[in-house]
């Protein structure tokens, strides 16, 4: 066997040994399976629809006027008889129920065949509203959890509604709003919670792999088995390469398995796999650092958490609409998460995400190199 073949054979033997050890570690095997099953199960339990209608309870408004308010489809206006009932609904002491004949009943328990109506806010119009809407005051009922900025915005909406209901034009002519949609316009094609969570699930699986691999590395150092390897023809570079390969193969395999289970490989499975592979390599690098720093299970868990928390932030930020803050975009996992969202959810192609793939590749190279250096120094020092 030539020198190159010998090196590959040695690396292959160490990878096979690492994967066998990983498989035989009951704790990590259990946690790995648990996370995979949990993520896949949670995915299928989550709703795959998006609620686009805001439901408002109103009092003091004739039903025809209420229906007129709801004309554009974005609002579902539910007439409620009294302010007391409306207050109780917003306060969660009573519920609004829609009966089969499309009327709304306020009660604690649902009438036969009725479905629950989620009323998010209430507006109480005074009796003299229609005679003099400019001087009348309108009471807006919101739950205590609604922040002040939203309350101010709601007040503006109510003012406009009042003008619309009273048939009076606004005192000034408002300029026409010109919308510039940044990114893909998802109006009418909003992303469900289930779809938003996909990159988070994939990333959680990769992070679980990071913990498992760092525990394996820490044990190899603590038990000094790595020294037994280093007095054979194996070089330290072979050991490090094997750790990287074992971690990447394991993480990649699990993440792809999850994506298959939740049918989320996207329209371009190769592109999805490319992102997952680079992500798996990135977490292998962090596993090397955490495994070098921690001496035992608790130690690796502690150092693993130090990496996990900042790496998770972009995954959570993907759940919320809007542009991520600059500091979130600066985190290594951001291009990975955004890339996965673009490829899997927004059906982006190679050209669309080339920049993100390049960025995550650069981060991956940096983290893996750092892991390589730290682990090498640790092995040499022990």
């Amino acid at each position, binding site marked *: 066997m030539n020198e190159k073949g*010998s090196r590959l054979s040695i690396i292959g033997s160490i990878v096979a040994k690492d994967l066998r050890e990983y498989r*035989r570690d009951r704790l990590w095997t259990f946690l790995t399976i648990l996370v995979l099953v949990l993520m896949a199960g949670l995915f299928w339990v989550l709703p795959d629809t998006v609620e686009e209608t805001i439901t408002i309870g109103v009092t003091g408004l004739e039903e025809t006027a209420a229906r007129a308010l709801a004309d554009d489809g974005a609002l579902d206006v539910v007439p409620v008889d009294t302010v007391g009932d409306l207050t109780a609904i917003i306060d969660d002491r009573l519920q609004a129920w829609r009966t089969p004949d499309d009327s709304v009943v306020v009660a604690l328990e649902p009438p036969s065949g009725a479905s629950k109506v989620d009323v998010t806010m209430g507006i109480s119009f005074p009796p003299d509203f229609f005679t003099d809407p400019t001087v009348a005051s309108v009471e807006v009922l919101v739950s205590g959890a609604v922040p002040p900025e939203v309350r101010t915005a709601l007040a503006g909406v109510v003012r406009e509604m009042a003008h619309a209901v009273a048939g009076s034009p606004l005192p000034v002519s408002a300029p026409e709003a010109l919308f510039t949609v940044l990114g893909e316009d998802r109006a009418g094609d909003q992303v469900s919670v289930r779809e938003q969570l996909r990159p988070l699930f994939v990333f959680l699986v990769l992070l679980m792999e990071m913990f498992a691999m760092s525990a394996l590395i820490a044990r190899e150092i603590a038990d000094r088995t790595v020294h*037994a390897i280093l007095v054979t023809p194996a070089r330290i570079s072979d050991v490090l390469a094997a750790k990287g390969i074992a971690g990447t193969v394991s993480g990649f395999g699990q993440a792809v398995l999850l994506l298959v289970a939740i049918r989320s490989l996207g329209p371009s499975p190769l592109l999805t796999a490319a992102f997952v592979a680079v992500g798996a390599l990135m977490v292998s690098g962090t596993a090397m650092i955490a495994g070098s720093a921690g001496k035992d299970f608790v130690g690796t868990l502690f150092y693993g958490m130090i990496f996990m928390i900042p790496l998770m932030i972009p995954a959570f930020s993907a759940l919320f609409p809007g542009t991520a803050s600059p500091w979130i975009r600066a985190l290594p996992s951001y291009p990975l998460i955004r890339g996965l969202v673009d490829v899997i959810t927004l059906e982006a192609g190679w050209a669309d995400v080339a920049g993100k793939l390049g960025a995550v590749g650069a981060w991956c190279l940096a983290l893996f190199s750092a892991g390589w250096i730290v682990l090498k120094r640790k092995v040499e020092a022990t």
Partner: protein
Amino acid sequence: MIVEELRHSYGAVEALKGISFEIRQGEILGFLGPNGAGKSTTIKILTGQLAPNGGRGSVLGFDVSADDPRLQAQIGVCFEEKNLYEAMTGAENLAFFGRLFGIRRLDSAALLSRVGLADRADDRVKTYSKGMRQRLMMARALVNAPQVLFLDEPTAGLDPVSSDSVRRLIREEADRGAAVLLTTHDMAEADELSDRVAFLNDGELYAVDTPENLKLEHGRRAVRVRVRRGAEVTEESIPLDDPDASRRLADLVSAGQVVTIHTEEASLSSIFIEMTGRELEG
């Protein structure tokens, strides 16, 4: 194995202060010294795990500083700590290390049989006793039929049966032609196994010679005879260089008064203390 003026420091601490010795094929060199004497540092350097600060070491013609895998391909190392893969079986441990040496089909059964573990081949190492682990460590050091063996305290903490088994293996390997560097605290073991012993203390070599030569050089040519006279047992020392020695011994033996006769040669332990001023243990 040729070691010339080997030096190494850990920061300001000089672990090796220029030691020199040789080991021939088929020879066992007992490397004796207390903890911190520099034994492990010497082994680390000679097995390519540590670069020396000075001097040179050559094993089987390979410079130990050159980091040449061809050197590691021909050596076997038995560490003091039991660094085995506990989740793997004894046979899997050996097969894994065999593959690192390029041996695709290692006869693990034969090796395990040599160390008395044939019936535990498929049991995970975590179920092994201390003695069984040590024997597996020995088997692992032999997977590549090494030409040079480095054995660091191979019998430390073992029961007499396991110790004997390990010692027999060491002797068999030397008889096969392997050069053996054996570090031990056990003077009786060093005396029994070693063709030569080296005394190492504070990074310096104090002596490298056969146990017999050291004992002759540092002991007395005399016998201590315990004699029964009536109800009383007394001791007397008879110098062998005394011209009257043979007659005195013959008289005691023929009178049937001798209880025991012992030579008064020095022990390796006492010679070590005499030369270094330190106990071997600790």
